[in-house]
């Protein structure tokens, strides 16, 4: 009985995994074959790198990569600064109305970012940040999720460490920098993981707020490259998609174990 149910569990898990990964596998297959071979699923068809050559020549990919890289970096730095300071204030600084303000911040979690797109667009334009990387990243810097995560991590720091640092002569900022931040490292790592993958893949907002190849991130560049007016060539689009997701995918595969551990450690605390 238990043997059977275990088999069923394993089989369903495998099935789900196959369904989940099949688009990626197909894109991978298509990227290395001619269009006709890709669609006909001829397993003996010869492999080719031509699709990549064509795709690479078709758009300023290097610029897109650089933009995406800069974008996720700017967002992550901004988020670290804001969530650290806000999380610390909510966790350890006593000020009137703290709980009310914290609940207001948490309410942000209920609001989909897409709802605010028009409002954000107006605000970014008014700030003169339209079509800049800073403008793309700014709405995400004060992340409610990040503030909540940091607050929880900081609340888990034993108060004696805070007091010991105070006796040793640390001010507020010194305590934060020398005690809280290093102790919350697993949380930072886990959060960075979520943030980078989210913003690497973010599409709608960058599509709206960018207007030129100088600021366009990979996702927007890829969608313009794959737009029907350029003619749909499934193999070339697959090759371009593979290029877009490759850096993140490889990084995940290489650091898989550390990532999982970071999540576990951040969760346990």
């Amino acid at each position, binding site marked *: 009985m238990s043997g059977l149910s275990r088999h069923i569990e394993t089989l369903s898990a495998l099935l789900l995994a196959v369904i989940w990964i099949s688009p990626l596998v197909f894109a991978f297959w298509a990227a290395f074959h001619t269009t006709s071979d890709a669609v006909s699923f001829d397993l003996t068809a010869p492999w080719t790198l031509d699709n990549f050559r064509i795709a690479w020549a078709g758009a300023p990919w290097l610029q897109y990569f650089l933009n995406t890289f800069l974008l996720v970096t700017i967002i992550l730095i901004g988020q670290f600064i804001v969530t650290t300071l806000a999380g610390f204030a909510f966790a350890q600084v006593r000020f009137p109305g703290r709980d009310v303000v914290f609940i207001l911040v948490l309410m942000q979690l209920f609001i989909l970012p897409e709802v605010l797109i028009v409002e954000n667009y107006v605000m970014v334009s008014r700030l003169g940040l339209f079509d800049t990387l800073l403008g793309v990243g700014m709405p995400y810097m004060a992340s409610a999720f990040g503030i909540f995560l940091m607050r929880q991590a900081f609340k888990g720091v034993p108060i004696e460490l805070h007091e*010991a640092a105070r006796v*040793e002569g640390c001010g507020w900022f010194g305590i934060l920098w*020398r*005690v809280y931040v290093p102790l919350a490292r697993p949380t930072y790592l886990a959060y960075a993981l979520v943030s980078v993958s989210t913003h690497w893949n973010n599409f709608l907002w960058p599509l709206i707020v960018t207007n030129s190849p100088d600021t366009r991130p990979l996702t927007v560049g890829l969608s313009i490259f794959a737009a029907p007016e350029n003619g749909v060539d499934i193999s070339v689009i697959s090759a371009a998609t593979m290029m877009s997701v490759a850096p993140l995918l490889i990084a995940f595969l290489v650091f898989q174990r550390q990532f999982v551990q970071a999540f576990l450690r951040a969760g346990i605390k």
Partner: protein
Amino acid sequence: MTDPFVHVDDVAKRWKGQLGVEGITLSIPRGSFVALLGPSGCGKSTTLRLLSGLELPDEGRIHIDGRDVTTAAPSERNLSMVFQSYALFPHLSVAENVVFGLKVRRVGAAERREKLRRALEITGLLGYEARKPGELSGGQRQRVALARAIVANQPLCLMDEPLSNLDAKLRASVRKDIKKLQVDLGITVIYVTHDQTEAMSMADMVVLMKDGHIQQTGAPEDLYYRPANTFVAEFVGAPPMALLDGAAVPGFERAAKVGLRAESLRVAEAGQGRLTCRVSECEFLGSETFVGLTHPAANGLTVSMPGLKHIPPGEKLEIDFADEDLHFFDAKGNRVGHPDTATA
């Protein structure tokens, strides 16, 4: 006599109307070892935190080294602190933990190295510099906490039950180490403990507290031989002092309570004793046996008998004592010189 090194004047601290401590007045001479002793919840840790500046008093003044530090930040009070949980930074190595404060205060690298080496040498931690606190035993962590407290040469060191996480054997040896350290460095130590053995064996001055108030301040022998009230009498000493109703002791009927230490009691021949009690239990300690006694008018009567004794519970035993070994307390529990003054 010069001014006291630490002077606490009528300090009180309350939380939302609830009493923390009240009327705390202390004068602590430079270079002395002071133990704040009392049962849990008596306010001894609060007193220490008020001294450290981690809490600020609602009333009263605190002077350290002639300076009014009542509202000063902990870092401005020139003191170091050892926490009950040691409060070592888990992400820093032993060396980094010890020099943490020096680094914060921007002491030069060369001086830092020299002070670190000295502090580790004194605490016997040379060779452990690169370890993380998580890789050390309880006793070693405790020594790291001590090293961190002495590295900056602060003249005052506050310790909050630093031995309570150690096993009994280690506790006895670390106790000696701490005392020796304090004498060698000539620092003033204020030490919180609930263990009267620690307080009695290490301190020059014991401050016994209960319910947020100081019960008695004095040398260990003062507390033992001249307890100020019945609480002190029953808290200090193992076994604690026995208290008898004055009415039960012939000749001293006018005292409300009469106190007697175990070592002042003798077992008397039948018919010769001054009190007849029943044996309740025998506690064998090796060189002696404490025989617990019950008497309708007494509380905590124990007589110490040499060697191993087995007396069946319920057996009658007569005891004798000398008049000069008696302690007298009035109806409020305060010590009085002689029973006749008790009613005056």
